[in-house]
């Protein structure tokens, strides 16, 4: 147990440190993210009725967008796990990775988690601060709201990385993961509620989205942060995380049996 925690800490810090090399380009991307946030905010301000809709007033919608543009840097944007695995398979380096004395899935999970923590700290938070300065943004007063938001976010990040891992490991069967990556990104954006509350969608789609793992990447953390929901959705997030972990372990074992490395 102690060893596993140490492995996680070391790999996570490596993933975090590796990203420090690209700070200049990350600043440019953060500016782009602020512009994206502003685009969505202004579109929403143009369409939201004065009385709002459901629990969402114009001000809450703005905060919803600001919050999601910030946390998306942890749960969606900048994730490299898919392409890292695909490149390893393509180059044959995967043989070395599989031979390491650590579970392949946990190795990538720990590394990516560290990288995404970097992403949240140095890319997401500056975006959030910039949007907060440009708009009307309030932070929760209750400490418990912060705690539950962070827990929900931690689970959302885990779910996102696992989904990315599943797309990445599909490269054991196909060299081309671009289409699957695109499909995953679209599902995360649409069903995750990144740029709109899920209540805007037609009722059947809304229900599917709320039951999907994607909603834990943006919608539920935002709901908890804005005080629109208690901590109840966290339980569903834990269930999704467990289910996806089992699937990832099973697929990893299957991929191991299938792998053929060329060359020498």
């Amino acid at each position: 147990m102690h060893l596993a925690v140490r492995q996680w800490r070391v790999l996570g810090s490596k993933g975090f440190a590796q990203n420090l090399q690209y700070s200049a380009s990350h600043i440019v991307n953060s500016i782009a993210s602020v512009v994206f946030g502003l685009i969505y905010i202004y579109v929403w301000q143009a369409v939201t009725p004065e009385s709002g809709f459901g629990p969402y007033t114009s001000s809450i919608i703005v905060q919803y967008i600001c919050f999601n543009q910030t946390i998306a840097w942890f749960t969606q944007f900048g994730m490299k796990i898919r392409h890292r695995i695909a490149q390893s398979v393509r180059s044959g380096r995967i043989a070395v990775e599989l031979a390491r004395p650590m579970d392949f899935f946990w190795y990538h999970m720990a590394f990516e988690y560290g990288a995404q923590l970097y992403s949240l700290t140095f890319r997401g938070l500056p975006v959030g601060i910039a949007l907060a300065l440009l708009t009307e943004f309030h932070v929760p007063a209750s400490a418990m709201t912060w705690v539950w938001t962070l827990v929900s976010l931690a689970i959302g990040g885990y779910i996102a990385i696992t989904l990315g891992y599943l797309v990445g490991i599909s490269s054991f069967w196909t060299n081309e993961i671009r289409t699957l990556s695109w499909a995953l990104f679209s599902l995360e954006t649409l069903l995750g509620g990144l740029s709109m509350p899920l209540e805007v969608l037609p009722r059947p789609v809304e229900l599917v989205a709320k039951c999907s793992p994607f909603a834990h990447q943006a919608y539920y953390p935002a709901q908890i942060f804005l005080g629109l929901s208690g901590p109840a959705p966290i339980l569903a997030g834990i269930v999704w995380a467990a289910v996806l972990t089992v699937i990832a372990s099973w697929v990893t074992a299957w991929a191991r049996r299938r792998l053929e490395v060329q060359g020498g």
Partner: protein
Amino acid sequence: MKLTWARLGQAARVYRTLVSASLRGQMQYRLDFLGSTLIQAVMGADGLIFVGAILWRFGPIAGWSILDIGMLFAVSRIGMGIYMLLCNELDKFEVYMVNGDFDTLMIRPWPTLFTLLARGTGIHRLAFLVQGIAAGAVVLPKLAAQGVIGGWDWVWLLGSVVWTAMLLFAVGLATAAAGFWIIRIEELQVFTMHAPDTAAMYPLDVYPSWLRRVFLTVLPLGLGSYVPLRFILGKGGSAMDMLWPLVACPLAVWLAVGIWRIGESHYASTGT
């Protein structure tokens, strides 16, 4: 080098040869190509679904109905589709800078930009064109039946597609040229290409004037679609809205080519 008709004919032949070689290479797995194009076209339409959901729920945005915005989306997507199809290598220019592959373009007996564009077509990115054409096929007949579009509007619509593609080329080229100094441009592309492209899918009336000015001047993607469509669809503006892009788009391309040439003269290989 003097530009003559013979030289242009020769360039066209070289372009055709290189492009067909690139197409043959990419079309080896036809079924995979068809499947991925279809999936990308459907899954990548999240932008349209987002707008559609908002319109369905709240009605017109700043006076633009679902048909109007569908038209805006169609023009933006088709323009982007043409850019991606013809300028695919420009879009992934960072790889040339990082790996030092640009060296191989410099020893060819043609301008580097020409060789670069001819090296690979973005046939695998047809999804943008498919989305745009599909949206256009749905909204155009309805707008025509309502009498919103007719006569010369068809020509102007075609013009806005060409202007959008030209502006994307200009911005894409200037962004790629920045790679001669800063090497890594992928993040810059998100700022200069993807953000304004997303913004231009909505009527620019929803943005405050400072942001609207940005999307019409510094990152002028709104000039190719929003400005002409505003007039064509009767949302305001004047006949001058047809003239601005006609002047601005070639000017933007000329400026971008100038930046490219300056950047090229500063190129220092990263290879061995």
